[in-house]
């Protein structure tokens, strides 16, 4: 990328990146192997990362396998996006206590913690930018999200291997991250091509032993990223959205997908952009004190569609239609972009392997049952 100056960081110097981040006050988090996948956890050294592993992802199936190579970021991603770092799965918002005159509330805004994430993928960086638009919009910034978000330092790794479930190229979010990161790496056999994307990233980069990236290294990085884009087997044609999906509201394909959908909500939990949450009240038994808690919710639950004595989305069909129509269509009207970044997690982590890149084209095909629809 012309606007970034590229450097080359040798593989043995990678530990230095972790050390410099730690001495700069960051808790360093990276992917680690656990329970058959990678999950985010605190790392102390390069050896904690899944060196020599790669992930195989298909609809409803995730497997790790050892490759025997020395790639540090051979695993593309696990079930977690960057979402849990900024939008906590469960967090206290307020405590409420009775007083002589009524009650007093105490907000429980978290302390901002400096967290550096190693190996965030371009699709996830794009997903975080979408969450920022939801939670930090204009005057209505969510202080809980904001406190967590402010402490994040993102080391993205441009993708040089696509999963069978990836379709970021068609969504314009990868396999190269163009913004939203502090440092971006491209992994090559001889080391990492590194660019800074923020002044915080520049500061860290300045403390690393590095040399200017040669033209050959930059070309090699570019060509690996380009072939990753080319190798993607899935794509989403969004050219007719949002209108085409609104027009498909009565399509018979919704019945077909509802027969497969479990309404378990896994797709929404792993989605980097899904932001629905519920708020719970947890009073003490003596009713003198209560905690007001926010937790991840899903448009697939029964309660999500319950309004004024009636459920507006009683069936699984209603719920799947709500999710996909929002994600791919009304999100554009609401936030100015698609709600999908093409990470493919909803395909992999669906227990029955429902694939939105199959559902959307089917929904946009003429429906034999609906004669009114213009095609």
């Amino acid at each position, binding site marked *: 990328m012309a606007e970034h100056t590229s450097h080359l960081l040798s593989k043995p110097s990678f530990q230095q990146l972790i050390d410099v981040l730690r001495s700069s006050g960051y808790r360093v988090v990276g992917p680690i192997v*656990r*329970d*058959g*996948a990678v*999950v*985010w956890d605190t790392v102390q050294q390069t050896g904690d990362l899944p060196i020599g592993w790669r992930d195989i992802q298909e609809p*409803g*199936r*995730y*497997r790790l396998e050892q490759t025997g190579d020395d790639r540090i970021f051979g695993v593309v991603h*696990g*079930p*977690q996006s960057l979402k*849990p770092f900024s939008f906590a*799965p*469960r967090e206290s918002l307020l405590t409420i206590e*009775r*007083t*002589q005159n009524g009650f007093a509330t105490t907000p429980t805004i978290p302390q901002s913690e400096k967290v550096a994430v190693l190996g965030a993928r371009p699709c996830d960086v794009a997903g975080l930018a979408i969450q920022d638009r939801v939670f930090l919009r204009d005057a209505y910034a969510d202080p809980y999200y904001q406190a967590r978000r402010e402490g994040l330092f993102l080391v993205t790794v441009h993708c040089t291997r696509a999963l069978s479930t990836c379709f970021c190229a068609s969504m314009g979010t990868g396999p190269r991250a163009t913004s939203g990161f502090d440092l971006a790496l491209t992994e090559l056999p001889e080391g990492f091509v590194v660019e800074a994307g923020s002044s915080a990233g520049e500061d860290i980069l300045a403390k690393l032993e590095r040399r200017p990236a040669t033209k050959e290294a930059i070309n090699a990085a570019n060509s690996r990223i380009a072939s990753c884009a080319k190798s993607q087997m899935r794509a989403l044609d969004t050219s007719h959205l949002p209108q085409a999906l609104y027009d498909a509201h009565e399509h018979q394909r919704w019945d077909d997908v*509802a*027969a*497969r*959908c*479990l*309404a*378990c*909500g*896994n797709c929404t*939990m*792993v989605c980097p952009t899904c932001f629905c949450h*519920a708020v719970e009240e*947890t*009073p*003490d*038994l*003596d*009713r*003198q004190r209560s905690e007001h808690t926010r*937790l*991840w*919710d*899903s448009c*697939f*639950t*029964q*309660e999500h569609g*319950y309004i004024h004595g009636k*459920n507006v989305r*009683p*069936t*699984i069909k209603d719920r799947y239609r709500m999710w996909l129509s929002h994600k791919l269509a009304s999100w554009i009207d609401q936030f100015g972009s698609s709600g999908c970044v093409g990470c493919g997690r909803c395909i*992999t*982590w*669906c*227990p*029955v*392997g429902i694939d939105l890149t199959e559902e959307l084209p089917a929904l946009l095909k003429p429906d034999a049952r609906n004669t009114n629809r213009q095609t």
Partner: protein
Amino acid sequence: MSNKNRVCPIVTPVRPTLAVYKFASCDGCQLSILNLEDDLLALGETLDIAYFPEASSEMRDGPYDIVLVEGSITTPDDAHRILAVRQQAKTLITIGACATAGGIQALRNWSDVETFKQVVYPSPQYIHSLSTSTPISDHVRVDFELWGCPIDKGQLLRVLTDLLAGVQPRLPADSVCLECKRRGHVCVVVAKSLPCLGPVTRTGCGAICPGMGRDCYGCFGPTEGGHEGPGVPPNTGSLARQFNEELNLIPVEVVRRFRGINGSVGSFERESDVWDKKT
């Protein structure tokens, strides 16, 4: 835990009385009450525990404000006794899979109990047992049902707190999956091909089994539409097909997944019967 700072009196004028009754069950749910630990002391202060033979030999007569019922109905005597318990109870709450759904002993509903009696007991004529194990709600009106094997003590405390506050108790009917993802557990269906019932099972346990790398066996019952609750029964058909076609369970194994702790509840029962016909 001190109540020195309490400035408002408890809403109810007297301490409401609590009774705990047992039918066919293992006592595990009653033990969950005793496992409330610190909260048990607060519970004892807030409620007058009038009848709880598992905990105290002091047993006072009813009527009681709140009655917790553990266990299912499996004998003619019990079918009679539950009517009397209901008469003593202002509010009756079932605790656990047995009382709420018939429990694991409802497996007898698919078998011949007379044969069991002949095989197991030297003098079967003394055994007076019904041919079925049925939930309390099949016999008397139930005001609230707590699922689980055993129940979650947090849910129990929550329901009692709501009742004391005069609020309609409400527990989530989400899938176990939401809790797995909130806790960062890796999905055992997707990553290990285990036949987990989490996608169709009601939350409440804290996703304990998947958190230990095991597949959920549905001890909190179906997500929605369990008895007369709101919502639609979960799509057990799709999950069963996945077990059979992708995870290679043979039909009898699919039957056993659904016909377990909550095997005689609505959607789980129907699904097990569908696959029973394929064995």
